[in-house]
């Protein structure tokens, strides 16, 4: 964050998320309140009417995401926010949005689970749920902010990605980032690049709803514009009607994956800190990356060659970036507020090139810089 002429304001992470959503063009919010995500809903309730948008409190999280999908089909950029228990309820509709290719943004402010768990304390234990929570093979994009400003920034990007690829995008946030307040200087709406879903260029009678225009992302009109098509969670043909034809089923699932995977090189979002000569590199995300940043600076002062990669995208996993780290470091340390979820993925792509160490904390409190520093000193050799 740069200090500039514009005055900084004190914003909570959840407030910054709402600012980002509104600037990205979100005009529909449906949700059900739950700690520690409730502020997003409260502020949306206050701000949506003034922004000519719609806010609805639904009866539960299943209906919330259902409403969001419906609003998106009707042409509104739409979102919802929840925490673990509600996120579990949303899984079925995440799959539906993925299959029907409906852009939408889901915020999961994680609490420690399982079940109602620890509502008011930080955790990062939904990493795997965000990837594989809904059934079936499906692509998903998951972003993880580590500061209030980044929560703003990545919310804007979540909408951009969901519109660009016509896919649900999940913002996976820990309670610390969601509830803490930092001074930020928000950019103006004009300085942001805002993306919208591809719109059909043909008249309604020529429109083929799921035809691949070459980008892998079919054009999407809003319901009510005169373009008529069928939306289903079943495997469907290019006209949107159910099919079991092998020559239609397989190309569809491949297209769903390829529309995102063709851009993997564009989806390597991270901040690197002192990694060039690092013997040990920390791979972290969310609030843990903030603790790691301090630990790395303290370790450097003591002469230890350590660095940090702060992941902004968790899924699709940034294999390209992480492989480079694994090739150039003797050891990698993955501190997380779970029993080892991203570390599992790091180990999967490691192929024994590098020693992968973990630091897992699951007592409901954040990882402190001193804990990371201690581990670095123990394993540095």
């Amino acid at each position, binding site marked *: 964050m740069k200090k500039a002429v514009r005055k*900084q304001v*004190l914003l909570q992470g959840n407030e910054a998320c709402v600012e980002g959503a509104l600037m990205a063009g979100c005009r529909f919010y449906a949700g059900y309140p739950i700690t520690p995500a409730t502020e997003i809903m409260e502020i949306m309730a206050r701000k949506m009417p003034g922004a000519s948008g719609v806010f609805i409190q639904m009866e539960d999280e299943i209906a919330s995401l259902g409403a969001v999908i419906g609003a998106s089909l009707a042409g509104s950029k739409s979102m919802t926010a929840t925490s673990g228990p509600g996120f579990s309820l949303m899984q079925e509709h995440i799959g539906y949005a993925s299959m029907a290719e409906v852009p939408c943004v889901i915020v999961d402010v994680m609490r420690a689970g399982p079940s109602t768990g620890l509502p008011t304390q930080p955790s990062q234990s939904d990493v795997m749920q965000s990837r594989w929570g809904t059934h079936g093979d499906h692509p998903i994009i998951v972003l993880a902010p580590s500061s209030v400003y980044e929560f703003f920034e990545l919310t804007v990007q979540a909408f951009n990605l969901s519109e660009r690829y016509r896919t649900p995008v999940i913002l996976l946030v820990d309670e610390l980032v969601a509830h803490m*307040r930092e*001074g930020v200087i928000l950019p103006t709406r004009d300085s942001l690049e805002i993306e919208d879903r591809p719109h059909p260029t043909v008249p309604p009678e020529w429109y083929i709803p799921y035809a691949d225009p070459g980008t892998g992302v079919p054009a999407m009109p809003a319901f009510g514009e005169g373009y008529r098509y069928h939306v289903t969670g079943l495997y469907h043909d290019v006209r949107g009607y159910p099919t079991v034809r092998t020559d239609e089923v397989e190309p569809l699932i491949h297209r769903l994956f390829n529309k995102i995977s063709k851009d993997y090189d564009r989806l390597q979002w991270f901040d690197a800190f002192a990694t060039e000569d690092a013997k040990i590199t920390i791979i972290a995300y969310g609030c843990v990356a903030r*603790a790691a940043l301090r630990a790395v600076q303290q370790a450097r002062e003591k002469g230890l060659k350590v660095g940090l990669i702060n992941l902004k995208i968790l899924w699709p996993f940034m294999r390209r970036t992480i492989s480079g780290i694994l090739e150039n470091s003797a050891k990698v340390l993955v501190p997380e507020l779970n029993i080892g979820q991203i570390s599992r993925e790091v180990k999967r792509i490691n192929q024994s090139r590098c020693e992968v160490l973990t630091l897992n904390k699951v007592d409901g409190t954040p990882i402190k810089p001193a804990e990371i520093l201690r581990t670095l000193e123990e394993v540095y050799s």
Partner: protein
Amino acid sequence: MNNTKVSSVKSPRYEIRIAGAGGQGIILAGIMLAEAGIVQDLYVAQSQSYGPETRGGNSISEVVLSNTEIDFPQSTELDMLIALTQVACDRNLPDMKEDGLVIVDSEAVQRVLWDKSLSIPFGEIARKVGEERAINVAALGSLVPFCPLIDRQALVKAIANRLPSAKLEANLQAFDKALNFARRLKGRLKSAGTTEEFEI
């Protein structure tokens, strides 16, 4: 994205924790303090920790103030602890910096196992000004003579921004009473943090 090189040594940061029970306005106090930091164009980070209940239970609010960008947004070693209950005092002492200052509410906290400490009757001050809930704002007043990064005017401005105007006058009275109290006691502390003088 960017690859930053290691630059400066440790950034000078000032860490304050306000601790008490749920319902005492602990978190609001932290927000007002952080906003005072914004008024002074500092880098600030405010965070909190509380249980699932709305009243009672332990509640803490932390503010980190710095002239440079803040890496870790929570406290590492507290420069100052303001404790409004006995449990809050006992539980948070292990997080103190060695020469940190502990300020407690003299009515609620009888035992302070810390040398560099002040005891101020926040509850009594709040009752005297006729606004029992001003205890959190009184607590903010007591930090002004000791925190080198925050001045009275910035804090008053931040408080005025957050409180309803009908309650403001009583709260500011409590604020100044606690501030004066703290200033008088400051002389008795051997190694108090700042030498700056403040206009009351």
